[in-house]
């Protein structure tokens, strides 16, 4: 049995009357590339936000590397939806902020690129190293952390070489073309030294050639940095090309899981994407 990196257990996320993620269960093992797909509005990004600590789930838990990092129990507002179902399973509230989750070893990219606009390519990656820095504000200000800083800069240069952005390192991040900005976001996430990399639609807005390059690239970095990858994507070429396993969400509910081949032939998935004719 391979080592479990991420486990989502009975996660439910409810916004008022809308149940964005509905009792989701999911597991990712070490070294896997797992995709989460589904039609628009299926709750994929919400699931990401629950895992990374942006939202506190209404119910359920998240395990990371064998440790429970997020937990909430269904009080009050959840009672109607899952009456009696999860009683006693969750008793604590664990709600780390996203920065704590990142420090534990997860890093993510964003669907709508969120680079630091006024910073150079190099600094964008360097800033992500901040969370791995051991210096305090005093030692950093008075440059007592020279060694660490030099090591960080070296590592950033290496990373930029890996992703092929070293030659534009002094440009403003936002002056890069779209595809390179996406790569930069991945480089930035890698700088935080994650075990699990979460990619939110990394190929959005890319042409087929760029998408192919990205597919190869994700495989490369997985091997090079010994990563586990969890991604959301709409480009089926990419998803089918690199995923070891796929989970499919529809209206917040998990409707299928399996290898790419299994998913391609799953009737429920096809229905969810194409819709079912009323008179069928």
């Amino acid at each position: 049995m391979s080592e479990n990196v991420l486990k989502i257990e009975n996660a439910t996320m409810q916004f008022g009357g809308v149940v964005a993620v509905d009792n989701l269960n999911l597991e990712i093992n070490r070294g896997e590339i797992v995709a989460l797909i589904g039609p628009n509005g299926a709750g994929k990004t919400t699931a990401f936000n629950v895992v990374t600590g942006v939202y506190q789930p209404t119910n359920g838990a998240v395990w990371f590397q064998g440790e429970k990092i997020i937990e909430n129990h269904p009080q009050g507002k959840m009672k109607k939806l899952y009456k009696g179902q999860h009683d006693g399973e969750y008793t604590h509230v664990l709600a780390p902020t996203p920065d704590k989750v990142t420090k534990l070893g997860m890093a993510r990219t964003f669907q709508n690129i969120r680079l630091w606009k006024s910073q150079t390519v190099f600094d964008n990656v360097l800033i992500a190293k901040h969370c791995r820095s051991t210096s305090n504000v005093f030692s950093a200000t008075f440059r007592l952390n020279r060694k660490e800083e030099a090591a960080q800069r070296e590592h950033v240069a290496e990373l930029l070489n890996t992703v092929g952005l070293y030659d534009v390192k002094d440009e403003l991040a936002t002056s890069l073309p779209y595809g390179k900005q996406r790569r930069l976001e991945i480089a930035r996430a890698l700088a935080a030294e994650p075990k699990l990399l979460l990619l939110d639609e990394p190929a959005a807005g890319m042409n087929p050639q760029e998408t192919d390059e990205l597919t190869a690239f994700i495989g490369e970095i997985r091997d090079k940095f010994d990563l586990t990858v969890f991604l959301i994507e709409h480009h089926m070429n990419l998803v089918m090309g690199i995923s070891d396993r796929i989970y499919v969400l529809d209206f917040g509910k998990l409707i299928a899981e399996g290898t790419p081949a299994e998913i391609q032939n799953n009737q429920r998935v096809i229905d969810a994407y194409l819709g079912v004719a009323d008179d069928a």
Partner: protein
Amino acid sequence: MTSSKKKTIFTAAVLAVLLAVCVVVDMTLPSYHIVVVVIKKATVYSLVAVSMNLLNGFTGLFSLGQAGFMLLGAYAYGVLTIPVDKRASVYQYFDGGAIQFSLPEIFSGALGDTVGTVVGMLAALLVGGILAALLAYLIGLPVLRLKSDYLAIATLGFAEILRAFFQWNTLGPITNGSNLLKSYPAFSHATPYVILAGLMIAVIVLLINSTYGRAFKAIRDDEVAAEAMGINLAHHKRLAFIISSFFAGIGGGMMAMYMGTIAAAPFKSTLTYEILLIVVIGGIGSITGSILASFLYIFSSEWLLRGLDAGKFLGISAPSVFKNGFRMVVLSVIIMIIVLFFRRGLMGDKELPDLLDRRPKKREKEAAGK
């Protein structure tokens, strides 16, 4: 020579020249001369403007509490440095006050008169800074969770509460209630101000260019991304707030030195506004800009435009127009023009060393054009 080395030398040279000019001014002009006065006041404003820029410009927290922290620093300085034998007359309505020691005198006993007095004055400034930082920590706990404009109004409110507090008669034995604090020692020359503020600003520059400074800028640019990349928002915002307030407190102490008397009245929200506008004129996110704008602002308001208040300006005599207050009207119109049409201010987010960059880039562009 690498460009970064060139920049360092250029910066050092500019700073050395400025310091030399200041020393020469001190040696040739009496301390009440307008040039000396302008340098002193502008230096103090520079420090406070830079401290505000650290928060508003580099961390993106729109705080308007600067005057409150300055007030604290100013009072701390006054209370701790008034000579013991003068306390009876200063605190005449409060039986000579509750505090019966003076830091410069304590240090004089140990270190000799001159050195001791200076060390005591510096220690008092430091205490002011630390008190401001402590207060910032306490205020920050509830307030820093607020977003942009709410934060602005809450910090403004805190500064106002503090001002009311310092005028409260029950605290009179320490703050002298609504009466002036005076008779405390102060530097009469401009050079000590320049060196002191210069050192403080240098520390802020070091901070901004450190890994923490970069984290602050990340928070300013995109809070969500910063948090997702492992930057603890609450912790870093609090740090920026505390550090900024620390330097504002020291700036307040220096302001007290420069003014000669301390009352709560000058530390109104108008002072915060003034400093904010200086930061804007210089360019939000530029230390060089804040300093440059402080000097320009003080230079114009104290000297260049003085004629506008006194009836005669640029040889034009018009007492009915150029009367008391006209100078500030002109100045605020200029500020509004900058705010509306030159939003990047004098420097944008460029610093002194970046001035060297401009030409080579132009040449590159020309080369590319050919």
